């Protein structure tokens, strides 16, 4: 195991999570539909996902990715801390972005969020007692709406999405380079793509609890 392999594991798991995020985002845009329609189509979509064997496989890759990404984040950060120098006055910050230096802290915020998020919805859906909607599907929509009527939870979700946005602005372009996929001509476009991807998805996700909070209170 060397620095390259560890970073490749970070990049592959991280970029897979980014890809998953897009699918997750597209599915969840159904929450923006009119309430009754949203309830029907969102619940139908959720039960379709639980039944599908292919989705099940992807979800195992997802769990594995999160775990590996977090473990390697810890390993890499620990080694880096030991390897890096410490100065009595440190002005090195002028030459890089704060979020590129604090991926571990941003990641920790995201990890706490992921645990909370799983507990809010994933656990309730899988193991909790959950009512059925008029169409016979588990009524996840109502669980989501009830959750996001709590202002504090909405704020927590928005903060988490801000952390995720910064993590991804740095992470996407960094991950692509870690894999050695680069070309001097396209570097700028890849950075712009990463930034647009990160901001669009995170703002979109953040708008969901905000939208529900204001339309259901």
């Amino acid at each position, binding site marked *: 195991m060397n*620095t*390259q392999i*560890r*970073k490749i594991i970070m990049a592959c798991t991280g970029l897979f999570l980014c890809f998953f995020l897009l699918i997750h985002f597209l599915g969840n845009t159904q929450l923006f539909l009119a309430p009754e329609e949203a309830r029907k189509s969102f619940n139908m979509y959720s039960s379709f996902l639980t039944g599908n064997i292919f989705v099940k496989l992807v979800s195992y890759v997802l769990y594995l990715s999160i775990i590996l990404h977090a473990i390697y984040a810890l390993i890499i950060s620990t*080694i880096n801390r030991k*390897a890096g120098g410490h100065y*009595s006055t440190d002005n*090195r910050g002028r030459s890089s972005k704060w979020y590129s230096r604090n*991926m571990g802290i941003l990641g920790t915020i995201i990890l706490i969020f992921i645990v909370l998020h799983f507990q809010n919805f994933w656990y309730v859906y899988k193991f909790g007692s959950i009512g059925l909607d008029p169409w016979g599907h588990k009524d996840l929509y109502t669980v989501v709406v009830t959750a996001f009527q709590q202002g504090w939870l909405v704020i927590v979700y928005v903060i988490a999405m801000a952390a995720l946005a910064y993590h991804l602005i740095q992470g996407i372009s960094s991950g692509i380079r870690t894999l050695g996929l680069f070309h001097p001509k396209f570097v700028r476009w890849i950075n712009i793509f990463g930034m647009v991807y990160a901001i669009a998805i995170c703002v979109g996700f953040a708008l969901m609890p905000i939208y529900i909070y204001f339309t259901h209170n």
Partner: protein
Amino acid sequence: MKLYLKIWRQKDRVSEGKLVEYTLDNVNTHMSFLEMLDTLNNQLITNNEEPVEFDHDCREGICGQCGVVINGIAHGPLKNTTTCQLHMREFKDNETILIEPFRAAGFPVKKDLKVDRGAFDRIISSGGYVSVNTGQAPEANTIPVGHETAEAAFDSAACIGCGACVATCKNGSAALFTSAKITQLALLPQAKEERDQRALKMIAQMDKEQFGHCSNTEACEVECPQGISVLNIARMNYEYNRASFLKFKK
């Protein structure tokens, strides 16, 4: 001008060091940073104190020997400039200047402001060369090298190996240095034969020397006296991946 200096003094590798304060009068603004340190050392020698040790050689920004951290920045406030090319006009009268050695696990302090950069030499000797048969020099034009390629290789070769990238990196990573050396050779046809082995060996040596991972913060490029591009690192990653995953031969 008058300066208040706080300089890292450390007796040897194993001793604990500390910051020591000095006052220096009559500093000329046209002096280079190293000349200012020479002036201080003259003063110290006159007073029967031990002079501050620091590395230097060419004093014209090309050898890569000099390098200290000045006010928390490798090679000081001026971007893309070595310590020897930094002049005292960049500082104010009565300013306090804090001077520390480059710090990283891969760069142990030898004495005062001198660090052991032997790790860089060992990375180079692990694979940063082209094997050629001795004998008569071959005809220079038998292997054509396109102008663009030659220029790109030269851009990477411009690295003077000063170690500011390592000192600037929060992870103490030597990725910029190692990647510049790998890229420089990867681009040239004469060096293609040993391409895969070179990437694998140099990276293995880099890891052995206790340098950290590259986080792509890109701070190294900003503080590099030669402005070596971080794209060298992406290129190194490509070379590594190619050598380890795309090549099935031994």
